[in-house]
């Protein structure tokens, strides 16, 4: 029987890289981000001062990490609404560890936070895969349950920046080549997850699962294991975001991270991640997160009436999905016409 031998020689790539880049789903979002930053800069040069850039990057960092994890789950045609609650729990754990355990090394706290995040993600994943029930419902449930646990655990206790070692807080202050350390960390995360998803077999499986879960099962893709992986990685990243939250912000307590879930999903969607799975990229999700966090700063810097800000964010989300849709429709039409010519 003839297996198809795979050789590395032969025909050149057909499409030029520039055309391919322009066609990518994340291109319009990236363009919107650039335009937004430039317009704001023109109106208020302070926007791109050293401090301004640092603030922009820092604001985006946590959302980027969350959006990347969320995108991974969404690719598999699932969703995780409990990320805000996971972030809250991990942030509070971080605060507790520093406050209760004298001289605890910072890496240990990071590991503990990642572990808790992964555990909570794994619970979501288990409920979704073993019980075979829709993720939206399950994670809406764990959104409440995790938040409740956080409330029960924290009560009125809050830990403040002063309770944590300076070196920890410095992570969110110090920069390397103008980039805050935690932003660089987020960048590493985006790249690593991006390579995993686009360049490895198991990563591609996630897209296949999201594209058609039944076909994936029939095809023999280990669906449960892959979906589980996506949820665990997402939990892990939410945990990372939780630890970084504690480094960046002042207080962590019962309500930390409340209401973040929809923003995270919005960021992924704005970045061209199809909500029903199967397509999109983590780079897109990351850009979406940067765009959404930047728009708030930009509107403030432009002194847009604060009452208008939320409305503008809403319009932006709608515009992003509309643009995405128009691009998709045009590609489909082009495909139809070009094939007609081939016939």
């Amino acid at each position, binding site marked *: *029987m*003839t*297996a*198809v*031998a*795979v*050789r*590395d020689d*032969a*025909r050149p*790539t*057909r499409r030029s890289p520039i055309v391919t880049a322009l066609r990518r789903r994340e291109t319009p979002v990236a363009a919107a981000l650039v335009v937004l930053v430039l317009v704001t800069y023109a109106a208020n040069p302070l926007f791109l001062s050293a401090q301004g850039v640092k603030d922009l990057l820092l604001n985006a960092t946590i959302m980027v990490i969350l959006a990347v994890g969320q995108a991974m789950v969404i690719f598999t045609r699932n969703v995780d609404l409990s990320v805000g609650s996971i972030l809250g729990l991990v942030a509070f754990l971080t605060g507790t560890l520093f406050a209760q355990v004298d001289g605890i090394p910072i890496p240990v706290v990071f590991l503990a936070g990642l572990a808790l995040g992964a555990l909570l993600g794994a619970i979501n994943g288990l409920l979704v895969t073993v019980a075979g029930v829709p993720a939206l419902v399950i994670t809406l449930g764990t959104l409440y349950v995790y938040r409740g646990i956080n409330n029960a655990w924290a009560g009125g206790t809050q830990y403040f920046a002063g309770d944590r070692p300076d070196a920890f807080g410095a992570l969110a202050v110090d920069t390397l080549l103008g980039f805050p350390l935690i932003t660089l960390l987020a960048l590493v995360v985006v790249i690593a997850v991006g*390579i995993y998803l*686009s*360049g*490895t*077999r198991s990563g*591609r*499986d996630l*897209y*296949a699962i*999201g*594209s*058609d879960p*039944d*076909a*994936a*099962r*029939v*095809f*023999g*893709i*280990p669906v449960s294991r892959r979906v589980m992986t996506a949820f665990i990685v997402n939990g892990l990243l939410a945990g990372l975001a939780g630890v970084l939250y504690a480094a960046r912000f002042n207080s962590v307590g019962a309500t930390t991270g409340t209401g973040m879930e929809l923003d995270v999903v919005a960021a992924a969607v704005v970045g061209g991640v*199809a909500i029903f*799975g*199967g*397509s999109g990229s983590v780079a897109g999700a990351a850009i979406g997160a940067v765009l959404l966090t930047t728009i708030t700063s930009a509107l403030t810097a432009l002194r847009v009436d604060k009452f208008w800000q939320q409305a503008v964010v809403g319009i932006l989300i709608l515009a992003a999905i509309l643009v995405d849709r128009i691009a998709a429709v045009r590609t*489909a039409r082009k*495909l*139809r*016409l070009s*094939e*007609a*010519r*081939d*016939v």
Partner: protein
Amino acid sequence: MSTASAPTLQPLLSLRGAAKTFGPVVALADGTVELLPGEIHALVGENGAGKSTLVKILAGLHHPDAGEFLVDGTPVSFRTVADSKAAGISVIYQEPTLFPDLTVAENIFIGRQPRGRLGLINRSAMRRAAERLFDRLGVSIDPDRPAEGLSIADQQLIEIAKAISIDARVLIMDEPTAALSGTEVDRLFGVARALRDNGAGILFISHRFDEIFALTDRITVMRDGRYIRTHDTADATVPQIVREMVGRDIDQLYPKEEAQIGEVVLDVSGLSRTGVFHGIDLQVRAGEIVGLAGLVGAGRTEVARAVFGIDPYDAGSVSVNGARLRGGDPQAAIDAGIGFVPEDRRRQGLVMDLSVGRNLTLTLRHALSRGGLIDRRAERRAVEEWSTRLQVKTGSPEFAVSTLSGGNQQKVVLAKWLATAPRLLIVDEPTRGIDVGTKAEVHRLISDLAGRGIGILMISSELPEVLGMADRVVVMREGRITAQIARADATPERVMHAATADTLEMAE
């Protein structure tokens, strides 16, 4: 006695007395089959005989409730599809299972993409490998396009490419040809024979006897979930196999009745959709069966969809009984008296998760309502009447239609349109994946409808069906009508010529 010609060979796989039940339904009571290396083995049986269930057991997708399963003489128990793959079994399922968002190339190689540096996927190598596969199958599909929006035929071809790209010792094909046209089927057979000559075993399921007798070495017959008998193809005859499948003799396959041909019901003129079809002029009269023939991809389905209002068109007009029909509005088409049995039963013909009853009455939503509210009693009566008239086999009309076998599902589709008392029925591949017994029934039904003055536009890729049933054959090629041939003049040669020739001159 008819049996294996090479009894000394160790069978690649043998399944004995396998049983599989779904709740109260016994899908398979005694699944028995044996596949030798270097043979092409046909599995035949009526709709619902349990063929696909047996295939799914072999694939590791279902776990049998009982029975013995040997691979190379050793008992095995597959827990997942991965197990069967590891054992060298490759399966083409009855229904294509592609990932719409992935590219065609990735669909073929998912899970075993060629890897390059750092162990990462090498996309250009993957594309080239896909191109080579397509060359071998003689088809041209862009490996970089997403699988979304491919025609059923293309999907099936990709499934085939996928299956043969694996170095499988056992290839199982569940009705791979149902969606394919003659040339593609020929190429597929060429590939299958080459595989067999290399020592692979192929299990081939089809309802088309010409294919079975042309291709296979042995035939196993199933009925009602049980093994009946295995023949050497050379010694078998069609009537004998059919009798074993059905348990009785069946009547004529194409029971064409002469019908009174009346006024023009459907008048399509100059219909065009850029890039899909051009200048379609077509008429169907009351009581007339018009066969729409052509190769797969000729654009027949597209024309039907446009006529029914599923897709828009750019130019031309559609009239029913002289009244111009608004485009892009299926409800208007239904109101005008058109019924449409689409080609993709699972996705277009039926709402698979809805009950048999609800599917049957979907077309009657308005007819069954009184004062804006559904008349439940009338609804129940309609369900009972139509499932009895078409002899739909189901435990209860409240069961999901997905639990029915393919043939019974097709009957539900037909029933829901017949219940609307249409004046024109468009049937797209009405007997695809339907066993001989049911096929004859469907043909009788269609013929009967024409006899009662309903105009029929029948799209079919099976030439005998077209020639046997149609009063007039319209042939399409590359989006244009290339011939209209009266029943008396219709020969396979003329139709095939019109479907493939380079000139349009032969149009009458």
